[in-house]
């Protein structure tokens, strides 16, 4: 079949949001590099930045799907803190090994997710209220299990999830494989679109796009390898992003979530069990939040009573900046990851510049507002 080509204008219009976000992230990096005398762009700092992003990004991946269904979860900070505390208590007080402590923590997350799912899906209590209740309740529960004290240190095997690196050489091999896989995937996708007569961008642009994205991906790996290698936590994030992107785009479950958020009535009349699917989603998300809690605890090498505070707000902000609609039906995992990177870049850059924490909060708040306004204003057209 003959190839149908989009002209440049069309292909930019189809992906305005992605390009704006990537552009914004690049702009933020360039500005900080300039303002911090290249301190920001230093591989050690960037590698650290990625590590800082991991917990928020893991949570944001799942939060995207929650928001796609038109729901929200305000409890992730408390639940992540609690799940982390469970792992820490079991290990520090009761001497459990890392694997059992992690398993117990994940089971806790799953159970909490089921609890949320029960109330949201079957009892029809708004998710905002259900998770607001959990936000308070599990903050209390953290105090309960830790006895109000900071629990540390963790065993080496648990701590390494948050602090260790894959050695540079295997990292490099992994990086090459990843980039190759991406290129293969992109080429195959384009070929498939041509086969079915969908419009694709012109060959030149396609090559340029694939090349620049490969370069960006490779660049991120290179930065980490130039430091100490790929952190385990970043590897975990890669896995989460792949799995959740796959769920959102390639599975029946994901398709149903988008339909529920896009038009719940139409979804129900198309034979989609809304309750069942929401229950599954909240359980999956519970598991994910616990994972983030474990990474966070491992990185701190301690469970503290305030761990995870405000995590939900950062995650929601990341999703929204990344183009997830609060009305449901729209949102991408990769957008949320870029949103999370923007948020933590701001944190990191402003800290490097020694900006007073007062202004850091104010600036972050205003940037969130600005990002959403730009999105709304550009979408009207």
């Amino acid at each position, binding site marked *: 079949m003959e190839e149908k080509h989009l002209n440049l204008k069309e292909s930019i219009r189809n992906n305005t949001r992605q390009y704006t976000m990537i552009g914004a992230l690049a702009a933020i990096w360039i500005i900080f590099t300039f303002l911090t005398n290249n301190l920001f762009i230093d591989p050690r700092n960037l590698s650290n930045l990625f590590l800082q992003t991991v917990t928020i990004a893991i949570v944001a991946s799942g939060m995207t799907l929650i928001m796609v269904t038109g729901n929200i979860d305000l409890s992730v900070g408390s639940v992540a803190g609690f799940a982390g505390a469970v792992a820490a208590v079991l290990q520090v007080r009761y001497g459990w090994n890392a694997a059992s402590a992690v398993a117990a923590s994940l089971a806790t997350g799953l159970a909490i997710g089921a609890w949320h799912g029960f109330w949201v899906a079957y009892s029809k209590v708004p998710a905002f209220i259900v998770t607001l209740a959990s936000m308070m309740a599990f903050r209390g529960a953290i105090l309960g299990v830790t006895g109000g004290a900071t629990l540390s240190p963790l065993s080496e095997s648990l701590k390494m999830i948050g602090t260790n690196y894959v050695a540079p050489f295997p990292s490099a091999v992994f990086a090459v494989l990843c980039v190759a896989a991406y290129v293969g995937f992109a080429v195959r996708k384009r070929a*498939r679109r041509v086969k*079915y*007569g*969908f*419009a694709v961008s012109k060959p030149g642009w396609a090559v340029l796009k694939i090349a620049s994205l490969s370069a960006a991906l490779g660049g991120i790996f290179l930065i980490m390898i130039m430091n100490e290698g790929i952190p385990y936590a970043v590897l975990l994030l890669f896995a989460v992003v792949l799995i959740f992107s796959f769920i959102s785009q*390639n*599975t*029946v*479950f994901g*398709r*149903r979530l*988008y*339909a529920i958020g*896009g*038009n719940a*009535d*139409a*979804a*129900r*009349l*198309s*034979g*989609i*069990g809304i309750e069942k699917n929401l229950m599954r989603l909240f359980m999956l998300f519970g598991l994910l939040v616990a994972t983030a809690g474990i990474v966070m605890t491992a990185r701190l090498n301690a469970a503290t009573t305030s761990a995870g505070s405000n995590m939900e707000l950062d995650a929601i902000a990341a999703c929204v900046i990344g183009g997830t609609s609060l009305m449901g*039906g*729209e949102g991408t995992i990769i957008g949320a990851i870029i949103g999370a990177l923007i948020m933590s870049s701001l944190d990191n850059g402003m800290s490097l510049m020694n900006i007073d924490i007062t202004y850091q909060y104010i600036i972050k708040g205003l940037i969130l507002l600005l990002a959403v306004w730009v999105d709304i204003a550009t979408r009207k057209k």
Partner: protein
Amino acid sequence: MTEYALEMKNIVKEFPGVRALDGVNIQIRKGEIHALVGENGAGKSTLMKILSGLYPVGTYDGEIRLGNSLCRFKNIKESERSGIAIIHQELSLVRELDVMENIFLGNEIHKWGVIRHEKAFMKAREALQRVNLSVSPDQIVRYLGVGEQQLVEIAKALLKEADILILDEPTAALSEQESGKLLGILKSLREKGVTCIYISHRLKEVLSIADRLTVLRDGKTVCTLDNAGITEADLIAHMVGRELSHGDDGEERTVGEVILEVQDWSVYDEATRRHVSQVSFSLRAGEIMGIAGLVGAGRTELVMSLFGAWGIRTSGRVLLRGKDLSLVNPEDAIRAGISLVSEDRKRFGLVLIQDVKNNISLASLEKISRRGVLDANKEVRYAEQYAADLKIKTPSVEQVVMNLSGGNQQKIVLAKWLMTEPAVFILDEPTRGIDVGAKYEICRIINELAKRGVGIIIVSSELAELIGLCDRILVMHEGTVAGEVNGRGATQEAIMHLATGNRN
């Protein structure tokens, strides 16, 4: 020349792809009750929406004159200020507030922003007396009956000093006794000089109350009559007119065994009101059965309940191929082999922000997936096949559905349900709001399905279409089956006769 209170001249209103009003003329005399009648979709509601400012000036052609002045309403407030009040079929009261608060909503009696409760109470009581409603102004609206709520609406309109009152199907949800009371009040308002435009399907009522009548058909004024010596049959003849039936290619279908059997089926809503009572019928494979009836006759409630999508409680039995079905949700119904194209495609049929292929595959994701993983290639193949079969006009199956025309959207909904390969296919108003070409196409598809042995139920307000398409037509009136007519050789008059409450 008589001084008219209101004149609408050459009103033309177009929606994308549809000309809803095509040069409508209507003159209303001061102090009369003027009835507006016509089939569903004739343009009555559209006309009233223009008059009340809901469709602002500039979105239609033609002119509106109130007395001697030309009106150019930009919004509802402006038409209200000119003394026009509309009472919609769906009541617009805030159910959680009390009667007085509703009456003064947006017009609160206050001093420095503080509500003056005593004064409001007194004025509300006066207003309620004018409509003969004996409820306390501090009664919460939720606890009032539908008829009483209607009267509250009228009281509210009168307080705004409306001298033209528009009532859109005010008695559709009322009992006979309540309707009688309402009509009495309208008569007494007429004596006080209030002009009233009355829209109703209940022709008996119309003939008992109206001074003059205007009949609309297909967006055009058919005639304006004095209410003297007119019979229901005359009115029906004007409403229906002569129209070509289509979709019938004359080819005989072979009708098979009974596939769906409904016995003593009743459906109740939250408030335990019964919307469908004791309906029984059976449907054969390859048969096309129509369901006719007026708005509010329970047609949609009946078919939606057969799809597991409506009603809090049901009683009776539904058998599919002789097997009892427990219809709890659409998921079960689809699995059993029943599919339903709902009447409101934007609300119930489509995910507008998604593309054509996603919408087509939505109800049959199992077909394009293995172990929960979607096969994108398969999905595209299915979508393209249906798009070609149904002649869906779209640049590609990746087009977002929101941007397509009504006819194409409706075909996408049809494609979605065809993909489930149902044994019983129910279509609720499948041709509403779409152009003639798409209508013809949809009728063709229905015929074709029947030839393949699918049992088909069509709910439609377009009688000509039902007659042309159906083997037989069930006529509903107030939740019951008023009668059944044969498709071939049925007259629209006979159907309207049954639908307006006359049993045969």
